[in-house]
């Protein structure tokens, strides 16, 4: 009995998708070709194929980005309880960020941020 609802949900979801596609086919004007066939790249016109070898520099930036990406994951819980942990929490977080800043300064001085 309970699974009947699941089945109904599946049917509903499928009909929503199918309905959208069918309505679009019936209503929308059909003019293929030109710029419409190229992949969507947030409005930029793509240059060349996507299956190329990326510059290894991207990976270095990626690795550096990951550090600060994860830093945010640690700062969110702190931001939620910011008022209750008070000054001590602020100082602790400042130490944490300072450590990461040392890392960034280090990467900077070592020339990781230069694009070669």
């Amino acid at each position, binding site marked *: 009995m309970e699974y009947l609802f699941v089945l109904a949900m599946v049917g509903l979801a499928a009909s929503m998708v199918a309905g959208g596609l069918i309505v679009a086919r019936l209503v929308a004007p059909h003019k293929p070709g030109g710029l419409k066939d190229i992949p969507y790249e947030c409005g930029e016109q793509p240059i060349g194929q996507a299956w190329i070898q990326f510059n290894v520099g991207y990976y270095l930036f990626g*690795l550096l980005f990951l550090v600060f990406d994860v830093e945010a*994951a640690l700062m969110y*819980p702190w931001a939620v309880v910011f008022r209750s942990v008070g000054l001590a929490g602020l100082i602790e977080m400042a130490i944490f960020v300072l450590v990461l800043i040392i890392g960034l300064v280090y990467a900077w001085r070592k020339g990781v941020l230069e694009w070669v």
Partner: protein
Amino acid sequence: MTELLARFAPGLHEWLTLCAVLYAIGLYGLLTRRNAIAILMAVEIMLNAAALNAVVFNRFVTPNEIDGHIMAIFVIVMAAAEIVVGMAIVVSLYRLRASVDVNQMNSMKG
């Protein structure tokens, strides 16, 4: 509608099964993949399955505590650190060998 949804909300067992399946997928990928980067991705899946497991236990077993959430955040951090180290080594190996196939990594025998 919310009551209807609540009736179908997955419980502890469903979530734990999901975690176990994710973990098994990761383990399978780790054992069968030959591309080093794919292996790192498989490891990431395994670690995240464990993090999800911690969050699930937190939600269903000790809803008033936050130990599981803390565990999940730190697992994410450690997973990121592991991937950074792994990727850095893969990139430097690729520069030397022009390959990330782990089957070719057999220069040491004994």
